């Protein structure tokens, strides 16, 4: 296939399709693939005056610095724990919620509940953080009022105590995403053939058996896909809420890889920003994400029929 053939038969008849695609292609090259090339500064001592190409190579220095520092383990642990707790508590809750909604006989009641619980999904993280601050305020927040007045306890400064951070983070995320996630499962439920239920009822299957043998298997592909996707993000958690709520007093449990990359790599909140270190830590995060998603996808393909590719 020579150039002339390609030009005349393949490119020219489709020139308008290429024209349409060009801006999008440029977007992905500039904002996704050029930054992938920028990973080389993880192996250099980047200095803005020298530029990327002339900055000196330092090999694995930044990786070594990071992994030998006391906070590396803390960051990895915090990130993993927030994800694992998020999976243990956050993953089943919307599934159970959707199953219960599906059992409701009143369409109206179902619709009201769905519409109401879906709402928090539309709020920005600063609003969510603001609601949390309101709720947990030590002087006049409702939680501390209950603690003091009804239980006779001292007020708790929830947002400066590391032991409460994970609970606050997980709970707020469940609260925000419950309705949204439930809709995904309910959408999957609508694709289950209703005759299956009719046949099961004729065969004398009770309610629990219908859920167990029809509804749940019908949800399995969706659950599998969402699980694989969440494995790909095992080393990245949504950092917006953390950035809004954490402070040096709660770094012990709240500081994660993503917030560290932002704080040390870009913002330079404690010390001058170290772009090379930030890139190195970000690369570590990306590579682990890629590897875990490939592994989970292969496992999923072996043990079930659903996988991403």
């Amino acid at each position, binding site marked *: 296939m020579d150039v002339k053939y390609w030009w005349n038969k393949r490119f020219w008849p489709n020139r308008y399709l290429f024209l*349409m695609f060009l801006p999008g292609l440029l977007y992905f090259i500039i904002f*996704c693939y050029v930054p992938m090339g920028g990973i080389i500064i993880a192996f250099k001592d980047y200095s803005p005056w020298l530029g990327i190409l002339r900055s000196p190579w330092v090999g694995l220095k930044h990786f070594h610095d990071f992994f030998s520092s006391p906070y590396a383990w803390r960051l990895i642990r915090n990130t993993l724990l927030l994800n694992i707790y998020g999976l243990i508590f956050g993953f089943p809750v919307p599934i159970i919620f959707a199953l219960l909604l599906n*059992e409701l006989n009143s369409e109206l*009641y179902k619709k009201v509940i769905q519409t109401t619980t879906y709402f928090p999904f539309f709020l920005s993280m*600063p609003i969510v953080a*603001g609601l949390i601050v309101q709720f947990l305020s030590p002087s006049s927040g*409702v939680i501390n009022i209950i603690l003091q007045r009804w239980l006779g306890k001292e007020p708790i400064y929830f947002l400066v105590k590391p032991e409460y951070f994970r609970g606050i983070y997980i709970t707020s995320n469940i609260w925000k995403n419950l309705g949204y996630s439930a809709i*995904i499962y309910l959408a*999957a439920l609508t694709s289950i053939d209703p005759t299956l239920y009719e046949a099961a009822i004729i065969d004398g299957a009770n309610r629990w058996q219908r859920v167990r043998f029809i509804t749940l298997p019908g949800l399995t592909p969706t659950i599998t896909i969402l699980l694989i996707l969440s494995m790909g993000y095992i080393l990245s958690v949504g950092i917006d809420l953390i950035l809004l709520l954490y402070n040096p007093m709660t770094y012990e449990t709240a500081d994660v890889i993503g917030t560290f990359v932002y704080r040390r790599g870009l913002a330079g909140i404690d010390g001058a920003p170290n772009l090379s270190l930030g890139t190195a830590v970000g690369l570590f995060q990306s590579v682990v*994400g890629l590897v875990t998603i490939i592994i989970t996808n292969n496992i999923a393909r072996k043990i079930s029929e659903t996988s991403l590719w």
Partner: protein
Amino acid sequence: MRVKGESRIFDYFNIVFLGIITFMVVYPFIYTVSISLSHPDSVTKGEVILFPVGFTFSAYKKVIESPRIWKAYWNSTVYTSIGTLVRLFLLLLTSYPLSRPNFPGRNFFTFLITFTMLFSGGLVPYFLVVRALGLLNTLWAMVIPGALSAWNIIVVRTFFQSTIHPSLIESAQIDGANDLQILFRIVFPLSTPIIAVMSLFIAIGIWNDYFTPLIFLTDDTKFPLTIILRDIVVMATGKEFVGLREFGAIPIPAQSVQAATLIISMIPVLIAYPFIQRYFIKGIMIGAIKG
């Protein structure tokens, strides 16, 4: 599904239980509204639990007087409207060729795009690219970076593939239409459902975006609502709190001002929500079933 003779106990339990869950989701809003409308003394004494105690609008007055919030409102509106137009157009243009079987290199380009879901260069190189392009601290920093997402492209491409019949495109080609004409005259008019859903997703994404302005904007007058909200409702810093104690005859506690700010900032989403939520449900359905 209702079956005669089956126990109703579970149904009653289910109705009550889901009602409690829904109340727990709604309660933070009720509580915040009540704080914002309660008499400052009642808030400080911790008397507000469910309903407002000693009704007053003083906290709202304080917030409405702040020019910063209105400026931020305006900025958010500008970013959202321009950003949605640009991003939507770009999304449709990019997705359409990928839906056409005769587009050379279609599989390669699809891979190029989906790969960005699995691996990225990370935050710092991304920031350096945006800075090198001179986008920092401009309107375009809120529009161009993050303009396209692989996920949306796949959803829209799948929609085109499944809704627009190839014979329709073929007959237009026989009539002498080129691909641009086909896109604008045939594909777009047939795709209004996905266009509505996508523009809403994009708009809400920009309106709620907190991280993009945090890293790309530094100028106080350019901040959108999300950044101003952080200052007021989370950090409790900012001009809104200066002279709070001296305001009017009664001192307003910071919590009342924060609550009023939260409610004011939620109003646009609250107003739009009843109209847009069904489109969102539709959108998730499209993504979940066909994605």
